[in-house]
């Protein structure tokens, strides 16, 4: 070999080595790209720059494997060509061999079409260089590159596919997990409104949805589904505006309730739906799931996503599981709410009855107490006037000097005033002089005057005392923490019950506290103790037992007040709450306070009941919610 040839062949020898090195490096860099998209995007520049090529185009096989399309710079495939022998690239794939097109009159570039194959044909790699030809070892080197690219492509595709499968499985798992989470979160909530709010919040959080809402069928107007909870600001705004939808096919939610079936709406693909709620501008897909319990459709759950085609038909199953669970929870909350309302209504009626009756009776009771007052006043006025007139009359017959006395003038003055105020006053002493002392004596009785004043006073006091009992429940109550055993002991002590009555007090250890107004509660028990003592009047055995302990009902404390009195006949057991018993005596006495007691205890969210046996005794049971501390 001569030197020049030698030099030339040295050059040649160097080139392939350099090229191989470059190919190896490039190939390495390609194979680490996992994303198919990125691979396609990056490989062209990578190959071109590291290998000094003029043009690099990757062709990928169509799905039908009949055509290949070049992947253009923007990432979109260009026009595809048939895999036949009409083009170099077609031939490369068809024959699975490198097709070399040297530079010609038409083009100053040499082109090389290399098949991209790994296990199966994937496409082709077309390289262009500003040289006349590609040398055989260049071709060999570039084929190695193409093989590496093919591997990279294959892996990336496989990775993507795997990733898709994985993502799908992960998605499924995530949906189920989210369903469980939602379920766990909400089953303990019994308050309907809190529940619904939680549901939409939890769903959006767990699934990452853009928006979720719960519609419930209006119980009165069965034609409408009313928005009861909506996620976020948009939800709140729609709630405020009283958003509702008609139950027909005009909306996805309406359709869903109408047909009791889930429905997906997308703004792409077939059956496109236009989402035009200004409050939810990012919605691209929506799913509505019916909330059904038994044969009853309660409403619908609507979920919206900002992603296109976010919902697939197979998602319906998973999400419906969650929706079914929610339907049960909502149903329970609704039932509970109805029950509570019914109970409240009942209590309101009963309490109202009790109050109304008590008020009516109280009113005429007060009237009765006040009855003697006018008569007493009238008598006192008469007696006082008579007194003055008698004194005045005697003074008029008295000697002048007596009449000049200060006292006499005072009397004369008083008599004059009476003349003005009581025009017929002097008649009170008319004809008295003729009568015997014995018969007129009592007309000037100081005792009588004082007695009448006493009666007035007593009547007034009685009425005032009753006022205390009556406004007991109506008094503004303060809520305090109450130690029951202390309170009960205090009431017993302050009442100074007769030693004839044997009092037993039994308080459970570690008795929970209750919340309420101590004064009102003292009134309640004071009343019960007083009733008990009075019921035992004339009984051979007088025993008052006071017990406080945890109630059988969880969360409640029970106080039992038992006496050995005459008992209450069965027929009266209901009446004791509404009767304004015993109108005699100065404090209304037995039974007055029971309707007040019931009201106070009800206000404390407690209960008061009675058990009794005639001739044996009576037990009042007061249940109060225990303070959770």
């Amino acid at each position, binding site marked *: 070999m001569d030197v020049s040839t030698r030099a030339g062949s040295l050059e040649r020898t160097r080139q392939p080595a350099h090229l191989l090195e470059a190919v190896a490096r490039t190939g390495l860099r390609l194979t680490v790209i996992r994303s198919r998209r990125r691979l396609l995007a990056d490989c062209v520049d990578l190959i071109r720059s590291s290998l000094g090529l003029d043009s690099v185009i990757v062709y990928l096989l169509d799905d039908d494997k009949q055509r290949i399309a070049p992947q253009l710079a923007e990432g979109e495939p260009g026009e595809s060509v048939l895999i036949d022998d009409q083009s170099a690239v077609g031939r490369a794939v068809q024959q699975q061999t490198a097709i070399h097109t040297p530079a010609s009159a038409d083009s100053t570039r040499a082109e090389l079409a290399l098949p991209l194959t790994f296990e199966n044909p994937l496409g082709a790699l077309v390289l262009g260089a500003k040289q006349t030809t590609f040398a055989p070892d260049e071709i060999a080197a570039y084929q190695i590159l193409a093989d590496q690219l093919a591997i990279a492509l294959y892996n990336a595709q496989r990775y993507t596919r795997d990733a898709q499968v994985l993502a799908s499985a992960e998605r499924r798992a995530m949906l189920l997990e989210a369903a469980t989470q939602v379920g766990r979160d909400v089953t303990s909530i019994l308050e309907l409104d809190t529940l619904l709010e939680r549901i939409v919040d939890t769903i959006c959080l767990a699934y990452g949805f853009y928006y979720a809402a719960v519609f419930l069928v209006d119980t009165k107007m069965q034609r409408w589904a009313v928005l009861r909870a909506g996620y976020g600001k948009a939800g709140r705004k729609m709630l405020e505006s009283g958003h509702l939808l008609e139950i027909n096919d005009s909306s996805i939610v309406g359709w869903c309730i109408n047909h009791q079936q889930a429905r997906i709406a997308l703004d792409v693909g077939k059956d496109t739906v236009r989402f035009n709620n200004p409050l939810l501008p990012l919605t691209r897909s929506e799913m509505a799931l019916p909330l059904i319990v038994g044969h009853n459709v309660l409403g619908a759950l609507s979920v919206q996503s900002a992603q296109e085609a976010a919902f697939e038909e197979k998602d319906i199953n998973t999400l419906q599981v969650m929706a079914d669970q929610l339907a049960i929870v909502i149903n329970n909350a609704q039932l509970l709410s109805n029950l509570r309302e019914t109970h409240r209504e009942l209590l309101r009626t009963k309490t109202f009855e009790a109050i109304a009756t008590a008020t009516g009776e109280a009113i005429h009771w007060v009237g*009765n107490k006040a*009855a*003697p007052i006018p008569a007493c006043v009238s008598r006192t006025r008469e007696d006082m006037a008579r007194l003055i007139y008698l004194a005045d009359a005697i003074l008029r017959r008295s000697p002048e000097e007596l009449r000049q006395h200060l006292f006499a003038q005072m009397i004369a003055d008083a008599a004059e005033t009476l003349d003005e105020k009581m025009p017929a006053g002097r008649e009170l002493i008319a004809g008295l002089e003729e009568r015997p002392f014995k018969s007129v004596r009592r007309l000037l009785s100081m005792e009588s005057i004082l*007695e009448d004043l006493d009666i007035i006073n007593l009547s007034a006091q009685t009425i005032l005392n009753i006022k205390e009992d009556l406004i007991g429940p109506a008094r503004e109550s303060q809520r305090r923490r109450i130690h029951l055993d202390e309170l009960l002991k205090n009431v017993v002590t302050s009442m100074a019950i007769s030693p004839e009555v044997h009092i037993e007090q039994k308080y459970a250890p570690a008795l929970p506290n209750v919340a309420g107004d101590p004064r009102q509660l003292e009134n309640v028990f004071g009343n019960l103790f007083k009733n008990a003592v009075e019921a035992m009047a004339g009984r051979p055995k007088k025993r008052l037992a006071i017990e406080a302990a945890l109630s059988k009902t969880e969360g409640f404390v029970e106080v039992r007040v038992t006496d050995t009195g005459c008992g209450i006949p069965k027929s009266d057991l209901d009446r004791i709450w509404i009767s304004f018993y015993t109108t005699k005596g100065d404090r209304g006495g037995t039974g007055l306070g029971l309707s007040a007691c019931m009201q106070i205890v009800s206000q404390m969210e407690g209960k008061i009941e009675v058990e009794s046996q005639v001739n044996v005794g009576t037990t009042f049971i007061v249940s109060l919610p225990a303070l959770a501390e």
Partner: protein
Amino acid sequence: MADKAIQVLLVDDEKPVLRSMEKTFLRAGFDVETAADITEGLALFNQAMKEQRPFDIAVLDLNMPNFDGVESPDAGLDLLKKLIEVKPDLPVIVLTAFDTVSKAKAAISAGARDYFVKGREEGLVELVNKTLATGGK
């Protein structure tokens, strides 16, 4: 000679009310005997009968403890019946609370001459006079 004063039997278990009514009757010129329960009332009545100075009229509260000492809305009625049994022509006025006028009407069926709703004492004296005028003594 002055007319013998009208003899009134007054029975009511509320002491202040009883006393005030007694004084009203006294000042109206009646003679009054009072009882705070029906047992005592019956005793006074029988005593008067025995001494041949029967009462001219009885005024009874309806709602009083009965013969066994138990609160009863019909105790006054029991006394009424007992009195009428002994002296059928005895005029009796029953005192009734505002909302138990029906009880008062039942009393009239049982023999009472009239009823008076407790409230003001005003009118009671007139009623007594009227009752006595129309068929009493």
